């Protein structure tokens, strides 16, 4: 009785582990590929099918059942324990990630499918068949319940997806080790080698847990609020995507938040549409920076736009929507639009050349990261803004993202003043973007010889590229006007002086550093 009770406990544990692997695979797939329902459906489907395959295969095993059972346990432990590392590293470094995903899911499923039939056959004859079936399956389903409750409530929040995988693998291996005692009578020959292997698997996964923080992929896990689901180091920057509950994801470049999928539309509508509204029927648009494609999405809603040129330094960014499909879904596959032309070059170098086809742009949208380095600070200088005029049509408009006028007023007003010193009329404006510490600032600018009025109407007749009409989610005519009103706490204090940002002083980098370090880290 004692021994069979422990064997039923064994069933409970392996059932729990088996379901955790399934949930892990589904979660990882939806983190990495988006579209949660699809990922969970396909992962569960493949997994259950594979379990069926495993059950069927069990009939071919005739000898040494207990020995095979322990071997299966160890194999599940190893593969399941390393499932998360395999998924995340595979996604980062392989282009055929889906193949790896479903192969791993299928293998784990097959091995787990072998477990219960083998165990039932081992227990066969010790108790009556009706009791055997009822108890084994009851424990199996209880294990499933435990797993489905513990995974979202306990394991994922406390251990994270990486360590959950490794820890459950260790549990599985411990079951295998334990089974060498429980099933000792059934195993012919020496169990020493089997035990040694079990210990090896446990040690291996334990080392994995110890070093899981050191895995370069997740080195920054600790500094982000949500689990990291995508990382890529390009020659220019480190791209990190984190994913929180409900499919929300955030993009970071070198640790700086670029957008949160929950409220990025506020930022991008504010960046794009005022400048589009300030020009009569803009046809040619230039986007500098903005490799996430979200500004492109907003530009492409203007049916009159004939071409959009996007200049972003980093191919890793302009190709991110393909590498990380949830971003492609968010930017509505803007990069696949035939109107879009991508140039991977430092915008500072690019603006020094003549405009492509010799034709300037009606609207220029500047969506660079904040000036937190000298390599970025040069893109906020009088020299850069003067060069930019060559690319702007008469009466064309520019919109510039200018960091937060609340968190970094000197930086913000320095950019405004630099634009003015470069020969532009400027209308600064701002919008609430909760993910960006509240308020974010922009400048709308035209050449000083042109007239610049605050646009009064949001552009009408916006459509998706497929022609379906679309309404803006944030901007309406009243919100548009309100953006240009500055309350007292976002003005530059009267006793503060800001200098113009030049290549040879780069004050904006110093202002930005001094102001933001009060709030961040």
């Amino acid at each position, binding site marked *: 009785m004692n021994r069979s009770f422990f064997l039923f406990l064994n069933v409970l544990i392996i059932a729990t582990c088996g379901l955790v692997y399934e949930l892990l695979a589904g979660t990882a797939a939806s983190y990495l590929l988006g579209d949660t329902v699809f990922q969970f459906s396909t992962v569960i489907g493949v997994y259950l099918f594979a379990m069926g395959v495993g059950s069927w295969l069990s009939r071919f095993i005739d000898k040494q059942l207990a020995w095979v059972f322990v071997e299966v346990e160890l194999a599940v432990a190893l593969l399941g324990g390393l499932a998360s590392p395999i998924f995340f590293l595979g996604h980062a470094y392989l282009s055929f990630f889906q193949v790896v995903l479903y192969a791993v899911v299928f293998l784990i499923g097959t091995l787990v499918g072998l477990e219960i039939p083998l165990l039932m056959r081992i227990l066969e004859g010790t108790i009556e068949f009706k009791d055997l079936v009822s108890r084994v399956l009851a424990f199996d389903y209880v294990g499933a319940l435990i797993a489905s409750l513990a995974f979202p409530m306990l394991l994922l929040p406390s251990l994270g997806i990486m360590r959950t995988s490794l820890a459950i693998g260790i549990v599985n291996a411990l079951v295998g080790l334990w089974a060498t005692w429980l099933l000792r009578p059934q195993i012919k020959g020496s169990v020493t080698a089997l035990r040694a292997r079990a210990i090896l698997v446990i040690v291996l996964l334990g080392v994995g847990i110890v070093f899981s923080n050191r895995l370069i992929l997740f080195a920054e896990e600790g500094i982000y609020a949500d689990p990291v689901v995508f990382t890529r180091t390009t*020659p*220019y920057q480190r791209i990190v995507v984190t994913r929180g509950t409900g499919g929300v994801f955030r993009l970071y470049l070198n640790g700086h938040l670029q957008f949160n999928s929950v409220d990025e539309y506020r930022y991008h509508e504010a960046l794009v549409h005022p400048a589009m509204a300030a020009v009569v029927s803009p046809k040619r648009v230039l986007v500098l920076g903005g490799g996430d494609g979200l500004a492109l999405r907003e530009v492409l809603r203007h049916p009159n736009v004939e071409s959009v040129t996007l200049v972003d*330094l980093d191919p890793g960014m302009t190709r991110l929507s393909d590498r990380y499909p949830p971003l492609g879904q968010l930017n509505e596959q803007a990069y696949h639009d035939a109107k879009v032309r991508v140039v991977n070059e*430092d915008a*500072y*170098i690019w603006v020094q050349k003549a405009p492509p086809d010799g034709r300037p742009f009606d609207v220029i949208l500047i969506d660079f990261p904040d000036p937190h*380095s*000298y*390599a970025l*600070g*040069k893109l906020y*200088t*009088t*020299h850069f803004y003067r060069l930019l005029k060559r690319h702007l049509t008469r009466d064309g408009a520019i919109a510039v993202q200018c960091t937060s006028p609340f968190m970094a007023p000197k930086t913000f007003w320095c950019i405004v003043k630099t634009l003015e010193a470069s020969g532009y009329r400027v209308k600064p404006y701002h919008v609430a973007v909760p993910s960006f510490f509240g308020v974010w600032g922009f400048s709308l600018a035209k050449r000083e010889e042109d007239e610049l009025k605050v646009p009064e109407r949001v552009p009408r007749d916006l459509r998706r590229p497929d022609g379906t009409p679309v309404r803006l989610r944030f901007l309406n005519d009243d919100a548009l006007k309100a953006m240009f009103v500055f309350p007292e706490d976002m003005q530059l204090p009267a006793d503060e002086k800001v200098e113009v940002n*030049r*290549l*040879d*002083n*780069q004050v904006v*980098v110093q202002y930005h550093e001094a102001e933001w370090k009060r709030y961040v880290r």
Partner: protein
Amino acid sequence: MAKRPSWQIGPTRRDVLATLLGVPVALAAGCSRKPPPLPEGRIVGASAGIGHRLRDGLRPQPAEGAWQERAVVIVGGGIAGLSAAWRLLLAGFDDFVLLELEPRPGGTSGSGASDVSAYPWGAHYLPVPMRENRALVRLLREMNVIEGEDKDGEPVVGEQYLIRDQKERIFHRDAWHPCEEPYLHAGESGEDIAQRKRFDAEVDSWVNFRDGKGRRAFAIPIARGSDDATVTALDRLSMADWMRRKGLTSPRLRWMVDYACRDDYGATAEDVSAWAGLFYFAARKRKAHGDSQPFMAWPEGNGRIVRHFAERLRSSGKELLRLGLAVSEVGPVERAGKPGVEVIACDHEGRQVIGYRAERVIFAAPQFVAPYAIRSLPRERIALASSFDYSVWMVANLELKDRPAGPFLAWDNILYESPSLGYVVATHQTGTDYGPTVLTYYYPLTAGSARAARTTLLGTGWEEWAEVALADLGRAHDDIHSLVERLDVMRWGHAMPRPKPGTVWGSERPKAAQPYRNVSFAHSDLSGVGIMEEAFYQGVRAAEEVLAAHGVKSATIL
């Protein structure tokens, strides 16, 4: 040469590094049992071979038909000779030829280029001139570098030519520290700070100084500055002695002053005069407590100025610039009762020999060459020429396939306590902040006499210099070996005049600047200080001397 047994290579390599970089760096670099393989590269320029053959008496003679007539021949195509040519053209005078030994003009302002960027082989920046330096302001306006003037009449330089932030940083104990001068603030003591303040106050007192004629103590060009005895007295002691007398003993202050002297003069504070040392700090400051004049730089360094001069000469449509011709003889002669000068030049193989019959010569080569090149130079002039001393430099250009890991590269990157001056980044001014670049590494040989340094320079081959550059840079960038794809070395035996005590305000300098028969002299050594502004001043001055003698009316632009 006999092949060394392999077991000797280690110690020998370490010996070279120890001599040129100090024992700790040599030991650190020598730790790895097998040194990483060196990149491609070679010794380039300066054509010492033909120079030494001429020094040793080679005197080819042109065939009878190989003589040409020119009113003026300019000998030497460095900044002084090119400036002289530019000044002649400004007066509408183009009956001259400029002869340059090297295949490219520019002398120590020369430059090279890789697929990635142009880069300097020597002088690589120029402080914005003050409005009083009228001739230089005029040149820079012509180059469209100066775009206008501010309300005080001071020149306004196009933003893209001024050195972009981050300008300078200094490496000390595994970290880079941003700085504005080669001064290490991190870890300074109260005494260091107090001494630094006293030093700045001393400099400021010289910035404020005006003599009886209202002249600054230190002006650029030097000829505009004061020759008052209180100023010239500074030329009689070394900068190091001056600091000791002032009680300025802070090691990091002394290091900064040494760095400044090595940077502009290729010698330490022990070997240059206090006048020269203070000139470095005071001449570029308009007002006490104010900032120094900002610096201008180009990827190719002062090669940008050379290019402008060369384009001016080319656009005349006449063959005014002849490259790869070594001047073997400058002979003052009487022809039909009229004084003139014969100039004989040959190519590097000594095969093609050309003679010029000229009325006047502008000898825009350094003084040390004069005794070999000018026929029957009187003994007192030979003595004058030999009173000048020249500093010795190694410059390496390193082509990198990518940036070293770590923080943003500054334009000027200084290694604290290294005998080198660190490196400048060629792509900095173009705003190319990622990917391949070229680093220019400067190493002045300051130890011992200039003559001994020259022996070391030429006795050290490409491999050893490459090891020195890589070991030194390796202190700050441990990935440098894997990034360098090519490393070329230039050995400058006579890089710049050395303003040792007594050079600038001694009796020799004004005498050497006087014409000898129909030969006028133009070189920065006549100023005592080897900076571009002085070479330019001497070139323009000599050209105006020649124009006046030739009867061409042209008001001075100086």
